C-alpha cells in the first residue's frame, strides 16, 4: 500500500478541513490507512468527495479513468441483465433487480464505485461518539415522480416496514439494533441503536434498502404497477425474464441523466449468450463477465473489459456443529491441506488476491496483516489421524456454481489438494437455483459472498453467534467481543489493530477455506462511456453516456 503525496492531498482538499481530517491525511500519507479508507472517512466526517474523482486513477481501479471527452446527451443503452420479478424492492434477493429500480428508487447514502460512501437522499449524517446515535439530514427539494415531496415520513415508513413483526425483509435483522426512529423535523431524523455500529450509511445502501414512497403499501405493495420513485429515470415497461425499459424523467432533483433510455435485456442464465450478444452488438453493457469469458472478451473488437478489485470471495465453509466438522482437528486438516494459492492460479487464473481464511480483504480498510498461511499436508494428516481418521476421511462439498463454474473449478483444485492429505472430497454440484434453498443447510458448502464496503459488515452477518446468515454455525464469545470492539472504533488505524484478534480467532477456528478474493469484471461496448465496475455490482446509470 503506497502512500499519497501529501502536497497533492493538501492541494486537493484545500484549506477548509475538518479538524479530524488532518491526522487522517497524515496516516494515509504514511500508508497506515488505505487511500480509499481515507476518502471514506473524510466523507464520513462531512468532507464531500467531489474533487476526489481526480484520484480514481491511483485507487487501483483499472477501467474507466476520468471522463473521456465531453459527455454526450441522449441515446439508448442496452444492458444485459436478468429481469426478475420485483414487486417489492425491499424483498428482492439479488443485486440484479436492484440495478433496475436503482434508476428510479434512491437510497439515503451511496457507496460509489470507489467504495467511498457519499450522501444521496441524505445530505449528511453525524454519529455520536459512541456510534450509538445517528442523526441524518435529508436533502431538501427532492420530489417523487408523482409530484409528492420527499420527506422524513417516507424514510420513517420504510424503517417501520423493514422492522415490522411480519416483515420478510432481510433488513429486519440487519437493522435489529435500531431501537428508535425519531422524527426531528421534516428533513431530519435520528436513529438510536442498542450497540455501536459504524457502518450505518453503508448498510443503508444495501440493495434491499431503497426508499419507497410512503404510500407504497396503500397503493398495493407492487412497485411494478406503481413505479414511483425519486430517481432520474421512470420505468415504462417491465416484462419478467424478458425486457425492462426506463426513460429519463424531467424534474429530477439532481443532475439530469445523459441517457434517454435504458433497456435491460434478459439473456438468460448462460453467460456465453451474453458475450455473444455483446460481440454481435445486441447489447452495450454486460452486467457481469465471469473468469471463463475473460480471454474471449479481451479479444473482441470494439469491446472493453472492465476490471476491478472487490471484496467478493467464495468460502468453503464447514458447519462447526455437524459431524465430522465439530472436531476442530478435521477442520484444521482441511485448512492445512488446502492450497489457496493454487486455487487462485487455476480456478481464477491469478486474477485476484489470495485469501487468508478470515474473510477480511487486504483492500478493505480494517485489514490487519497476519503472518501468511502455510500449507502443511503432513500436519493435516497427523491431525486427521489424531481425530480418528487414520485411513483418511470422506467429505462431501456442495457446490452451487452461483457465480459461475469457477466455484466448481476451485472446488476441484481443493479436491486435489485435500486428496494429498487423505481427505477424499466428493463434489456435489447442483444448479444454482437448486442450491440456494439449502445454501445454509449443508454441512460443507461453497458460498459466494458479495462485496461489502467494510469487512466488519460481513463478519457481523456471517460469523457472529446466532447472526442471521451464519451459515457455519460458528459461535465464539471471544470473537463476538473482539468484533464488537473493532466495530466501535472510528479511527481506521486503531480499528485495524483491533481486527488482529478478530481475524486470528476466525483463522484459527478453521471455519472456512477462503481461496481468494475474486476480481470483478464487466464488459461494455466501446460506445459506452463512464460505466464503471462497482465492487458490489450496484450500477448507477445516470452518469453514463453513449458516443
Amino acid at each position, binding site marked *: 500500500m503506497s502512500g499519497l503525496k501529501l502536497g497533492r492531498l493538501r492541494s486537493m482538499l484545500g484549506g477548509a478541513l475538518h479538524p479530524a481530517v488532518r491526522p487522517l491525511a497524515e496516516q494515509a500519507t504514511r500508508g497506515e490507512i488505505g487511500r480509499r479508507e481515507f476518502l471514506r472517512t473524510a466523507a464520513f466526517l462531512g468532507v464531500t468527495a467531489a474533487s476526489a474523482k481526480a484520484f480514481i486513477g491511483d485507487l487501483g481501479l483499472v477501467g474507466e479513468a476520468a471522463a473521456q471527452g465531453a459527455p454526450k446527451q441522449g441515446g439508448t443503452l442496452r444492458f444485459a441483465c436478468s429481469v426478475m420479478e420485483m414487486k417489492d424492492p425491499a424483498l428482492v434477493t439479488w443485486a440484479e433487480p436492484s440495478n433496475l429500480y436503482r434508476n428510479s428508487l434512491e437510497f439515503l447514502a451511496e457507496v460509489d464505485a470507489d467504495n467511498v460512501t457519499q450522501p444521496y437522499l441524505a445530505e449528511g449524517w453525524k454519529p455520536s461518539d459512541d456510534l450509538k446515535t445517528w442523526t441524518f439530514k435529508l436533502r431538501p427539494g427532492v420530489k417523487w415522480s408523482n409530484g409528492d415531496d420527499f420527506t422524513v415520513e417516507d424514510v420513517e415508513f420504510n424503517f417501520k416496514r423493514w422492522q415490522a413483526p411480519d416483515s420478510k425483509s432481510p433488513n429486519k435483522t440487519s437493522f435489529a439494533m435500531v431501537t428508535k426512529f425519531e422524527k426531528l423535523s421534516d428533513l431530519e431524523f435520528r436513529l438510536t441503536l442498542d450497540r455501536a455500529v459504524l457502518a450505518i450509511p453503508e448498510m443503508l445502501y444495501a440493495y434491499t434498502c431503497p426508499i419507497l414512497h410512503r404510500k407504497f403499501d396503500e397503493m398495493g405493495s407492487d412497485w411494478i404497477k406503481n413505479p414511483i420513485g425519486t430517481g432520474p429515470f421512470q420505468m415504462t415497461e417491465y416484462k419478467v425474464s424478458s425486457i425492462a425499459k426506463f426513460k429519463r424523467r424531467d424534474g429530477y432533483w439532481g443532475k439530469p441523466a445523459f441517457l434517454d433510455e435504458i433497456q435491460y435485456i434478459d439473456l438468460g442464465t448462460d*453467460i456465453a449468450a451474453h458475450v455473444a450478444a455483446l460481440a454481435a452488438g445486441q447489447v452495450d453493457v454486460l452486467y457481469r463477465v465471469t473468469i471463463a469469458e475473460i*480471454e474471449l472478451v479481451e479479444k473482441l473488437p470494439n469491446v472493453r473489459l472492465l476490471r476491478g478489485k472487490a471484496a467478493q470471495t467464495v468460502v468453503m465453509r464447514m458447519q462447526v456443529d455437524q459431524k465430522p466438522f465439530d472436531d476442530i482437528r478435521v477442520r484444521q486438516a482441511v485448512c492445512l491441506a488446502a492450497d489457496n494459492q493454487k486455487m487462485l492460479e487455476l480456478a481464477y487464473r491469478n486474477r485476484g488476491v489470495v485469501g487468508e481464511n478470515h474473510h477480511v480483504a487486504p483492500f478493505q480498510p480494517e485489514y490487519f496483516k497476519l503472518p501468511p498461511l502455510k500449507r502443511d499436508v503432513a500436519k493435516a494428516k497427523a491431525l486427521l489421524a489424531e481425530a480418528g481418521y487414520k485411513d483418511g476421511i470422506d467429505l462431501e462439498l456442495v457446490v452451487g456454481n452461483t457465480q459461475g463454474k469457477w466455484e466448481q473449478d476451485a472446488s476441484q483444485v481443493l479436491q486435489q489438494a485435500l486428496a494429498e492429505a487423505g481427505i477424499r472430497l466428493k*463434489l*456435489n*454440484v*447442483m444448479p444454482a437455483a437448486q442450491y440456494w434453498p439449502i445454501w445454509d443447510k449443508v454441512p460443507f458448502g461453497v458460498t459466494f459472498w458479495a462485496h461489502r464496503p467494510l469487512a466488519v459488515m460481513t463478519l457481523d452477518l456471517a460469523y457472529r453467534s446466532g447472526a442471521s446468515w451464519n451459515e457455519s454455525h460458528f459461535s465464539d464469545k471471544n470473537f463476538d467481543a473482539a468484533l464488537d470492539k473493532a466495530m466501535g472504533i472510528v479511527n481506521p488505524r486503531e480499528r485495524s489493530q483491533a481486527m488482529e484478534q478478530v481475524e486470528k480467532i476466525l483463522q484459527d477456528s478453521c471455519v472456512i477455506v477462503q481461496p481468494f478474493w475474486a476480481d470483478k469484471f464487466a464488459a461494455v461496448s466501446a460506445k459506452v462511456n463512464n460505466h464503471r465496475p462497482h465492487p458490489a455490482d450496484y450500477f448507477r446509470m445516470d452518469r453514463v453516456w453513449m458516443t
Partner: protein
Amino acid sequence: MTVLGVLRRSGPALIGGAVVGVWLACALFAPLLAPYDPLKSYSPLISPGGLSPDGMRFWLGTDLLGRDILSRLIHGARTVVVWAGLATLSAYVVGLAAGLLAGFYRGWVDTVLSFVANTVLSFPVLVLYIVIIVSIGASAANIVIAVTFASAPAIFRIVRALTIDLRSRDFVAAAITQGESDWRIMLVEILPNASGPLVVDVCLRLGYTAITIGVLGFLGLGLPPPTPDWGGMINDGRAMAIAFPHLVVFPCIAISSLMLGLSLLADGLREIANAGPGGGEG
C-alpha cells in the same frame, strides 16, 4: 461364430466395430493408456502438442485446471462406457421385462403397461429428465434412474412388438403344446430371437445416452466433477471454446466418433441380419 466373423461380413460393421473397440479398449485399460493422471493439475491451458514449463508434452493440450485432455478423454471413455452402459442396461431390464409381459399376455397386462409407457412417452423427454433430477438431485445414480425412466418405454415398445410377432411363431406354439411354463417361453424361446433388432437398438441407444448425459451436464445436472466425461468436458470448455478451441474440439471428436462407430455398427449389424440365413446366428 466369432464376433469378428460376423463383423467381417459388412464393411460398416467392421469400421464401426473397430472404433467402438478402440474406445472400449480405452475404457478397459485407461490407466495404462493415459499418459498422465486425468485428475491432476499440471499447467493450465497448454495448446495441443505444447510443453509445460517443466518440459512435459501434452499432445491434446491441457484444460483450464491444467489437466491433460488426452488422459481425460481416455478415462472419459470409461465414464461413458460405465454410466451410459449402466443407464442403457437398466433401461433394458425394465423395458424388456415389461415388453415381454405385455407382448406375451396381451389383454389387461398389455393395456396397463402400454398406458404407462404412453404416459411416459407423452412427457417431453428433457423435461422428464429435469424434473426427475431436480426432484431427486443430480448424481450418477440418479442419471441412471432418469435415463431408465425415459428410455424404458421406447424399449418396451420395441420388445412388445417383437414379442407379439414371435409369440405367433410356430416354435412358441410348439413350446406351449409341450406344456412349457410361460416364463421359460419368454426367456428361452422369445427373447433370444428378439436379440437381433435389440442389439441394433442398444448400439444407437448407448450413443444417445452418452449424449444425453452431456446435455444434462449442459443444463447443470450432469455427472459430478471431477469425473472426466466427454459431455461434461465439452460443457466445461464451452464458454472458453472460442479462445481455446482445443477444450471442446477433442471431446467433441471423441463423442462423435463413438456415436459414429456405434451407428455404423448398428447399420452393419442390420445389413448382416438382412443378408439372410446364417445371419440369425451369433
